């Protein structure tokens, strides 16, 4: 239940605004000039807001499509991302979004058509490169699909460009629009997974691992390509046993030919972001592990990172080809 929806005056009559508002009949609507009046202002408590976030409907003015950070990708020479939304309905303790914005309210940008134009423009400018787009870097791609309809809106663009990949990365068990349309070769449905035991402590408000595996399996059987994202890798007692159990379960539940790629990535936070997140959740067990600062990044010891990555990679090699496995550092 969203109690209050703030609506930028500029888009209050936008058809998408009206369609979204119809889904929240009991909410209080408040008109605002700019989303920045509510979002990311100082003196907000992210943790308290996260318990009952409000929704902001806004117009994005620029920065529709951006280059991904160095080290983020699944094999293409150029990687881009776009976010139709800021913040996530889930509350994962390792997520960088906790330290990204000072507000936990959700912002949905309703001017999807401007994203369309920017995506087409980037494709036109990179006609000779292999490029991949990542949807929802600053949010979960699909968790609010039943409210926004963004994936359904954006997919037809990628039907026009079969050589350009798009990845929807999610922890949701959202099946639509994908179960209702024909699978597309250039679309990757990517799922972030950590072992069940860790997930029950760290993935707050997120569907269980078993439910996620079920949806992955259903989409794979429907013909969609699947990305598996073991990112971040979480350390702790019995981590080998826990990851072996997870990986075996996943690889034995999904048709292997449906798997597009697997990526593994270490736990990492920019130093300032880690400080903010630790201040929000000082009693969080995740932060009781030995963590080190290296080049402005807080992470596990590099030997631990390496051991975990190699372990997961070797397990994956029992099922998939080396060319399908990527390490993510960003």
């Amino acid at each position: 239940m969203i109690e209050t929806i703030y609506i930028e005056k500029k888009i209050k009559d936008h058809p998408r605004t009206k369609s979204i508002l119809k889904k929240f009949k009991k909410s209080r609507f408040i008109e605002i000039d700019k989303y920045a009046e509510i979002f990311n202002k100082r003196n907000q408590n992210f943790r308290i807001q996260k318990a009952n976030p409000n929704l902001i409907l806004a117009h994005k003015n620029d920065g529709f499509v951006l280059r991904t950070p160095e080290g983020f990708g699944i094999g293409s020479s150029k990687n881009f991302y776009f976010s139709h939304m800021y913040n996530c309905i889930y509350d994962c303790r390792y997520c960088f979004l906790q330290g990204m914005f000072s507000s936990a309210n959700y912002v949905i940008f309703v001017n999807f058509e401007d994203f369309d134009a920017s995506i087409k423009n980037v494709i036109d400018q990179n006609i000779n490169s292999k490029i991949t787009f990542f949807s929802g870097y600053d949010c979960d791609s699909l968790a609010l699909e039943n409210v926004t309809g963004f994936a359904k809106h954006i997919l037809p663009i990628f039907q026009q460009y079969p050589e350009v990949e798009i990845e929807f990365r999610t922890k949701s068990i959202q099946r639509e629009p994908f179960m209702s349309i024909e699978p597309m070769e250039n679309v990757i449905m990517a799922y972030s997974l950590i072992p069940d035991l860790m997930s029950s402590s760290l993935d707050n408000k997120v569907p269980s691992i078993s439910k996620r595996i079920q949806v992955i399996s259903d989409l794979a059987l429907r013909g969609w390509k699947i990305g598996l994202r073991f990112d971040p890798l979480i350390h702790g007692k019995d981590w080998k046993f826990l990851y072996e159990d997870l990986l075996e379960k996943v690889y034995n539940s999904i048709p292997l030919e449906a798997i597009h790629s697997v990526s593994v990535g270490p736990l990492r936070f920019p130093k300032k972001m880690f400080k903010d997140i630790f201040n929000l959740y000082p009693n969080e067990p995740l932060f009781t592990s030995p963590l080190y600062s290296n080049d402005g990044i807080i992470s596990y010891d590099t030997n631990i990172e390496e051991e975990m990555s190699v372990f997961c990679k070797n397990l994956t090699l029992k099922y998939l080809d080396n060319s399908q496995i990527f390490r993510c550092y960003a």
Partner: protein
Amino acid sequence: MNKSELLNKMSVRWVIALKEEAKVILDYYEMALINKKTLYPIYKNIEETHWLILSGVGRHNSAAATSYLYTISKASKWTSWINIGIAGSGKGDYGNIYLVDKIFNQNSYITYPATMPKSNLPKMSLLTTDIPITDYSSKELIDMEGSAFFDIASKLTSKEFICIMKIISDGPENNIKQLTKLRIIELLKLNLTKIAQVVLYYENLSENENQIKAKPDIFFKISSNWHFSVTQSSQLENLLRRLKVFCDNNEIMDLIKQCKSSSSVVNSLNNKIETNKVNWSDV
């Protein structure tokens, strides 16, 4: 529970314009005038968890009183701040209480207070004016203090800890000239149950935040036994927060009982973290 323990728990600060608006609150929370010469009348309960200041009418008074109460009462970052009072309205129901989630001010920008989540109380916008207004048309709530209170309180804490409640006392059908001191007290009394429910939320919010943010109790014990520099003190606090998740105070004291210096305390605690492997089946 001793006084210092109570002081470290929840805390609430009230900023109210008139004595008549405050009377029911003062009685209910058992606050008495403090025995000290102050710029504005200030009341507190015996546990010093609730403090109330009578600001008088108007934005300047409200801003000054809020700031003054913060200093006098040594309010923390997780103190809840409450402004309650009567208001005119062209839209709401006479005698009803409303939470404020949007504030207009004739001279400055619009602000958007957070409101208590999952409340059954209705919400309205508030116009704070410098002169009394009798043209109520199209205005939800009208007062003379709210915006100034919010502007100052939001510099003292995050906005989730600030609450503005208004009770409609006058409007097109209820002439302000008929509003008596007794009637104001009556209006507050009629809404006391609702007020107390809201305040309970803010008491809990403050207490929960205190439990998360206050320095671990063992920090003070260790600090009194060894001398720590400012940097070491910050390291100690950080380490203790992490250790407290999986060690009790006795285990922590055992780790450092042989330490001769503050740096060896920090090293010993750090070594414990270095060897920790989170047991995910325990969390």
